[in-house]
């Protein structure tokens, strides 16, 4: 085989060359069945002569793949399945969705609660988005670990990296289209982060909000980006990605000790295809179909049983909100809460920039070992990235750094079991823990926030003087109450806190305070 023969210009197809099934037509049955068969052949020949479908068949379904292609190769096509799901359900959601800030939320609410199968279609779109984000990361990880991005598939990786970026843009803009409080404030938070870009920050922020503040232009822009701009770009990139699968072939499963050498790789790959290759259809497609079916079944199953994400409250710039991103971005939300505030200005811009830049520049190292067993650092990177992301997603949902508000507005109250057997002063103190906002950050017997120390048994840990000092002076993240609290109030709170001892705590707590 010559160089590039995998996509050699095919001759005009004839039935006998391309479709073995029809070739057997030499032994076509006689009688009406035979007539039908001949009609079929004639129809095929008519179409092939005008559309070249035999050529397409030979270039795609019949193109040879290495026999070593295994179950690790199914995630690319599964991602494509998920993308197809998104395109189809997205089109039908657009039948009813009104991309205008005064009706977007209501139309989505109608789709979810009133429209026939609306909740299922929205559910598929929602879970399909999660599936696509998950699958594209698994796809990338698998091909990173097997070094498939090395020669001659560097641009395959590059197009995939841009597709990954597009997928995250789709995920972000998609959650905005709900136009609920999370969406509204995600735009604000996104603009505030973009504003940290050096020199052009405030311009970028105003472009994101498409005006001086989030308003009438904002949603339509994100809608157009989500519906037209990025999907169009993705269609093109997916086309390139699939073309390269055929032009440069599916990588063979790597063998430890057989590094990639651009001088010999292609010849060697052609030999593998020749000696140990098989057509993509049906050996490769069977695995892909199974995985695609599995992904589809899970997505549709979740859409029917769990349904789409709750809509929450409508976007409102003046109502209280407690915004949270969806899971595929909550790890970043968690990360920003955990890093030292002083480093934020650099971090907010540089972290995503460097992350993406590393992905783009990775194919520069296009030689050497492909197998993960000879690339321990690759394994370390994957384990670190996966566990860090998993941990951050979990931590993002816990968000112990966030003050707790009931229904986004009310400070929690001290639970009834922590108010038993108190005298009048202590009771007044327990009430003050609610009105002074303490319970937003501090927990008593399982109720309240986790930002500050748990107070369930604080009386056994700190003396009256130490408590007084902390309340009046503040410190760490605790505001000082010295200017706003009366002596009477302080004494009541102290009386209550001193009654919280190891013996009184329903759920005994080790003093986790500073």
């Amino acid at each position, binding site marked *: 085989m010559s160089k590039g023969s995998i996509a050699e210009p095919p001759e005009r197809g004839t039935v006998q060359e391309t479709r073995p099934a029809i070739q057997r037509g030499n032994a076509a049955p006689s009688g009406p069945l035979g007539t039908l068969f001949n009609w079929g052949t004639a129809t095929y020949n008519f179409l092939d002569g005008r559309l070249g479908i035999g050529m397409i068949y030979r270039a795609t379904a019949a193109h040879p793949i290495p026999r070593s292609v295994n179950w690790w190769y199914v995630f690319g096509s599964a991602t494509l399945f998920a993308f197809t799901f998104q395109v189809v359900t997205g089109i039908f959601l657009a039948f009813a969705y009104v991309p205008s800030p005064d009706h977007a939320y209501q139309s989505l609410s109608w789709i979810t609660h009133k429209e026939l199968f609306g909740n299922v279609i929205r559910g598929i779109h929602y879970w399909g988005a999660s599936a696509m984000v998950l699958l594209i990361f698994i796809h990338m990880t698998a091909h990173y670990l097997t070094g498939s991005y090395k020669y001659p598939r560097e641009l395959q990786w590059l197009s995939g990296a841009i597709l990954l970026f597009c997928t995250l843009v789709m995920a972000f803009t998609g959650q905005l289209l709900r136009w609920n409080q999370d969406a509204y404030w995600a735009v604000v938070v996104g603009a505030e982060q973009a504003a*940290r870009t050096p020199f052009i920050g405030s311009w970028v922020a*105003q472009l994101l909000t498409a005006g001086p503040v989030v308003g009438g232009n904002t949603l339509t822009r994100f809608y157009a980006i989500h519906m037209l701009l990025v999907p169009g770009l993705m269609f093109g990139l997916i086309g390139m990605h699939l073309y390269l699968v055929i032009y440069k072939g599916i990588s063979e499963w790597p063998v430890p000790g057989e590094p990639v050498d651009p001088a010999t790789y292609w010849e060697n790959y052609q030999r593998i295809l020749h000696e140990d290759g098989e057509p993509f259809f049906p050996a490769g497609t069977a695995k892909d179909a199974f995985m695609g079916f599995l992904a589809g079944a899970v997505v549709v199953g979740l859409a029917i049983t769990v349904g789409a994400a709750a809509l929450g409250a409508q*976007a409102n710039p003046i109502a209280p909100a407690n915004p949270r991103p969806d899971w595929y971005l909550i790890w970043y939300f968690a990360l920003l809460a955990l890093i030292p505030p002083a480093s934020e200005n650099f971090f907010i811009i540089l972290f995503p920039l460097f992350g993406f830049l590393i992905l783009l520049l990775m194919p520069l190292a296009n030689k050497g070992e492909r197998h993960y067993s000879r690339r321990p650092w690759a394994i370390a990177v994957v384990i670190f990235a996966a566990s860090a992301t998993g941990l951050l997603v979990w931590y993002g949902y816990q968000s112990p750094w*966030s*003050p707790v508000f009931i229904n986004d507005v009310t400070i929690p109250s001290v639970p009834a079991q922590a108010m038993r057997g108190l005298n009048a002063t202590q009771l007044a103190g327990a009430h003050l823990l609610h*009105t002074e906002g303490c319970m937003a950050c501090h927990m008593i017997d399982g109720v309240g926030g986790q930002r500050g120390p748990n107070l369930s048994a604080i009386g056994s840990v700190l003396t009256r003087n130490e408590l007084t000092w902390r309340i009046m002076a503040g410190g760490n993240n605790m505001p000082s109450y010295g200017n706003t609290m009366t002596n009477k109030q302080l004494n009541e709170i102290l009386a209550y806190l001193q009654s919280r001892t190891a013996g009184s705590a329903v759920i005994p707590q080790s003093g986790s305070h500073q």
Partner: protein
Amino acid sequence: MSMTMQELTRKLLTREAFLGLFTLSFGAVAGLVVGIPIIGYVLGPLIEQPPEIWEKVTFAGGPNRGRPVMADSIPIGQTEEVAFQARGPLPWAGTTATQGAWLRRTGPSSFIAYAIYCTHLGCPVHFLPQPKIFLCPCHGSVFNAEGINIGGPAPRPLFTYNIRVQNGHVQIRTHPLPVIT
């Protein structure tokens, strides 16, 4: 061995070269003609800024919700959430046609209006009337009644809007989304 000027000219001025150049330059001109207005259209929000104007302020919540805030309708020292119309809202802006702020009366006719956006990442801060603090629900930044950051990751005090009292009405000067650059 080197080409003479005449040979070079003859080589460059072939029919093919001319037609190729024509195709490319025609495409480039067409791209520019369509591209420049599109870029201008996309960057429109930066170029066409609605004017900053004084807007009347209304109560954003509580029993007086929607009523205009008069100079004496908030007791001195108290802070209330207020709403005002965003700059030049589009007819379909819906709820986003309004903006929120925390209005604190500091004297007989003096007010401070704090932006609702936390200076950390822009989440809407809550005001707790009893301890007189602003608390951010996202990462727990705390600001005192004067808007000074006293806890959490917020790097600076709350942003403020300009306020004036006109014929008894409290008015606010509209302002773009305050950001830290």
